[in-house]
Structures are given as C-alpha cells and as structure tokens.
C-alpha cells in the first residue's frame, strides 16, 4: 500500500522516520530520494542527515535548531512540490559490475553452512529458482542479470547497497537464512526478500547467494579511480548492471583491482526519469521471464 499521506514517526529526541507506504515499491523510493534531494538543495535548518531506504526515509535534526512540528511542516511542504513535479529527474550513474554467477566461492560458503548448521538447506541457486517458478539455476542467472538494479539505499554496513530490479520481469523473491550464515566472502551477491545486496567485506550474512564480483565496493585504501573521493563506490540512486564473467576473468580483474589498475565501467551522462520509466513499464508483459 502507498499511503495517501506519509506517516511521520518520531524516533527519540532527534530522529524522525518518514514512511511512504508499507510495500516494496520503486515509486516509494523515488519519492523518498526526491525528497532527500529537495532537502539537500533547499537545506532545512537543523537537519544534518537524510537517509532514504526502500519505502521510508530517516531524518536527523537538532531539536535546538528546529522543533519536531516545524520539521514536519517543512518536510510536508517540500514533499508537496516533489510529488507535484511530473518531470522529475534524478541523477543516476550506471555501473557495469563484473559478476561471476554460480561461482565456486558462494558454493563453498553454502557447503560450509550445510555441513555445520543446516544439513537440510537446499542450495541457494536451486532454492531461489524453484521458489520463483523458474526452470533451473541457469534461468535464475538469466533473470537476475537481465535488469538494471536501482540502488535504493546504502546501509547496514558502510557502502552496502540495497537494490531493486528496475525491470519487473526480473522481480524475484527469496527468504533470508534462518539461522544466518557465519561466513560469506567479500563481493558475494545475493538476495533477501525482494532486494539484492552485495557484501563489502567478509562476514556473516542472511541473504541467498549465487554470484560474486571481484570489484570492491568499499576500499579504505582507495586504490581505484572511482574511490578517489571516498572509500565507498556506490551512491543512492545509482543503477547497477551485472556483466557475466568467467573464473579466469574474475581472477584477472581481482588482480588488477589490487594493483589499482582496473578501469571501472561507469556511465555518468544519464538521468533517471520516473515518468519515462512508468511509461515503459506500462508496455511490458509483467508475467514474462527471460
């Protein structure tokens, strides 16, 4: 459900959560991102943080600079202007991300989980394929890599993207691990709920995993060019497209990334138009699969 009026939910003495709806819907994220841009452009006194998530946004404010009531009023005013704007365009880079699907490292992490934690766990690619009515893991690869992903938020860990498929024919669903996995390789790509995410560092995890990229998304050493400004690669409202690579290419790219010589493929001239996007989606057969 998309709420007619967003819900303003205070979180303690200095945070406010704005909930735009209670479903995973790109339109809600466009609204949250557009509001975030308007807040950044106009500047609301006392607001130091605005972080959009899927269908909500989190605002931090200084209660000595602005009251909660005034903050709500300002946000509603900006929201009215962005909602009314039919020709809204959102800056959006397109990042081509090399990815090896059905890779041996994800398989290793799954094997470890099956051996140590849950012997009955169906292997992730087969499980996600079956759950979504796909023929097999190969079709899961076609469907999952058949779309650009919208970076709806960064969070949980620094630089970690939460992404949604822009092509509705590539929508997939996957429950999270229960209990979670104790180990996942850095660069692993997986799904939880309707979202796709990537692991910026080695660590525990709960997503169903079936691919891996050799390209870092978090690098404190800032070796590659796109990291020159910051240790994180991705920004909210970027788009990502996975490009299939072999194991040999994975190892070659991994080496180049370590040397700092890998040339990333990032396209920067486009803007994202929710209106054109809507018009395109309206022409699609939503039940079709690649």
């Amino acid at each position: 459900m998309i709420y007619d009026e967003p819900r303003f939910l205070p979180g303690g003495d200095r945070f406010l959560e704005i909930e735009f709806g209670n479903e995973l819907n790109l339109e809600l994220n466009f609204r949250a991102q557009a509001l975030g841009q308007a807040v950044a452009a106009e500047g609301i006194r006392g607001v130091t943080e605005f972080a959009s998530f899927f269908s909500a946004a989190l605002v931090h404010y200084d209660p000595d600079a602005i009251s909660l009531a005034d903050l709500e009023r300002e946000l509603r005013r900006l929201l009215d202007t962005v909602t009314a704007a039919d020709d809204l365009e959102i800056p959006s880079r397109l990042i081509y991300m090399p990815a090896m699907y059905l890779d041996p490292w994800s398989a290793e992490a799954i094997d470890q989980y099956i051996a140590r934690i849950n012997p009955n766990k169906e292997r992730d690619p087969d499980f996600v394929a079956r759950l979504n009515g796909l023929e097999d893991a190969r079709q899961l690869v076609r469907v999952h890599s058949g779309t650009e992903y919208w970076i709806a938020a960064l969070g949980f860990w620094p630089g970690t993207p939460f992404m949604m498929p822009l092509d509705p024919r590539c929508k997939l669903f996957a429950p999270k691990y229960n209990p979670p996995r104790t180990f996942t390789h850095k660069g692993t790509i997986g799904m939880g709920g309707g979202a796709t995410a990537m692991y910026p560092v080695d660590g525990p995890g709960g997503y169903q995993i079936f691919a891996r990229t050799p390209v870092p998304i978090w690098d404190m050493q800032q070796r590659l060019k796109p990291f020159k400004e910051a240790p994180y690669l991705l920004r909210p409202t970027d788009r990502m497209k996975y490009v299939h690579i072999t194991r040999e290419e994975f190892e070659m790219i991994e080496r180049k990334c370590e040397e700092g010589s890998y040339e990333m493929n990032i396209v920067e001239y486009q803007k994202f138009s929710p209106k054109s996007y809507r018009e395109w989606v309206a022409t699609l057969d939503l039940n079709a699969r690649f």
Partner: protein
Amino acid sequence: MLEVLKPGLETSIQDWPGRQGYLKFGIPWSGPMDDWSFRLANLLVGNAPGAAALECQFIGPSLKFQRDGVFALTGADMQAKLDGRPVPAWESIAAKAGQTLELSFAKLGARTYVAIAGGFANEIVFGSRATFHKGGIGGIEGHAIKAGQVLPVAPGSGAPGRRVKAAARPSIVADKRWSIEVCRGPNDDWIDEAGHRRFVDTEWKLSSKSDRGGYRLEGPDWSFTERAYNKPPEHGSEPGNIVDHGYPLGAINLAGQTPIILVNDWPDGGGFINPYTVPSCAFWKLGQSKPGELYRFKVVTVEEAQALAREIAALCSVASIEQ
C-alpha cells in the same frame, strides 16, 4: 605526544558529536558513548567540549607522556595512577614528560575518558577524528589504540587544579540497576498493549554480547499487533520483520525476539522494527553500564527527552568547572 605502553581493552580516540552527515552511505557517527563525562573531561583541560579524547572501556591503558601536559579523567573509576600514585578524577592534573598514567579495571561505571590539553591531533576522516573500528575509519589507522603507538597531541594550554562541581557530574549507580528513558516509536504500533506493559515492567539484563554497535537485552518475549502479521510478504516472515528501513541511533531494534539498543557504531538500516528509541539524554547511562547490569525503562515524550538533553547540555559548560 602520548606513547601507548598498554592499550587496555579497546581504547579508542573519539570526538563529539562524531562523524555526522554520512548516514546515507551507511557510515555511523561513532563518538563517545557517555558524551556527558566526555565533554566535561575536555572542558577541564581547556579544550572545546567535542575535542578528540580517549574512551577507555572496562580496562584502561597505560600511557607515557613524551612531553609535559595537562590531562583530566572523567566517567568510570579505573583507579588511575600517575607514576604509581593515585590521581583523582573530575580534576585537571599536570604531568611531566616521562611520567606514566596507568588505568586499571573499571571499579564503578564502564567507560573512562582521558582528555589532554590541546586534544588528539590524529587525521580527520569525513569530518571527524572518531574511531569506527569495525569499519576501519578514523582514530589511529582506523582502529583501537595499540601498544607502541604514539598518539599525536595538538598544542594546548590547560591549567591543573580545575574541578567539575559535584552537582554537574553524572551519578553512576552503585547497585547495578539503571532507570533508562525511552520514547515510544517509530514502530510502537507493531507491539500490542501486553507487549508494551511487559517492556516497562521488566528488568532487562544487559547481555555480554554487547559492543559499541549494539546492546543486547535479555528478557521476556514480545507480543504483537495485527500490523505485524497482516502485511505484504516482502516484509519477511517473522512478526518483527519490516521492509528494510533506516534505524535511528538509540533505536531498540527487535531482532526476532531479542531487543538490541543501537548505539554509537550502529548499523543504520535493516529489516527489523524499532518499537522504542533511547533518547540522547540516556546515552551516558548506556555508556556507564556493564554487561549483567539491569535496565528498567521509563517512557518519556519526545519533548521531555529534548528538555532532559538540554539540562545535560547546560551542565556540560565552563560554568560547571571550579578552580
């Protein structure tokens, strides 16, 4: 300059209010957990209240002064000694080059702050010197201090013999029972009335599985309203699951049935509800409590919580310092 002889248990450089403005990239604020004691430590040595100082957790470090300096200790009592002689807390003290400041375990409270005149001059990363050690950002090489390191100190001119008035100090409880302010929300309407009553009627135990990212609480199970069950599938299968959203600092995050208070190095988003939020005025209590201690939560309104934060801010001023 201060040389680290023994690092203590995860001692880190922090500044206040920490690294703000990068939440949308997933970077938390960090900063001192007991910001009340922290600010007073800086004021004692003539620094700005937010200047970079050390946060010592549970077991403090041993530090050798490489040149003369003025320092102050606030927060937990770690039985500090300067060249073997006990030194008082809440007071600025002169140290000579070559002297060693030795902190032991925390007898009362959990975190001691060591401010030094001039403040630490480690590199500023994203607008802050604070350490976010899980992410490897800030502090010294991104992590807690290590033996053998030399901590850079900016020039400063503090005076010894300045004291924090007794009435301006936070009072750390001796009986291990804390009353912690909370505000309802943002997701309080997912919990039913019985669940809310249970929350305020319970003495929650702070779990040993707690750190600067989250404080796990042990207590009874939660019960939910219709909203937690009757929802689209993308929220997830557990009643406490919600479409991934942002987490406020201080949120009581319900991971399954385990409430986790999200503190300074917090993960800023995920798929669990936050029925309550601990406001900033109660953070010093979180910072000074040890695993095994007990929390009872007291519900206050947003306005009351803001007023309490203002009272603490008023105490964190030079008016609280006497010669």
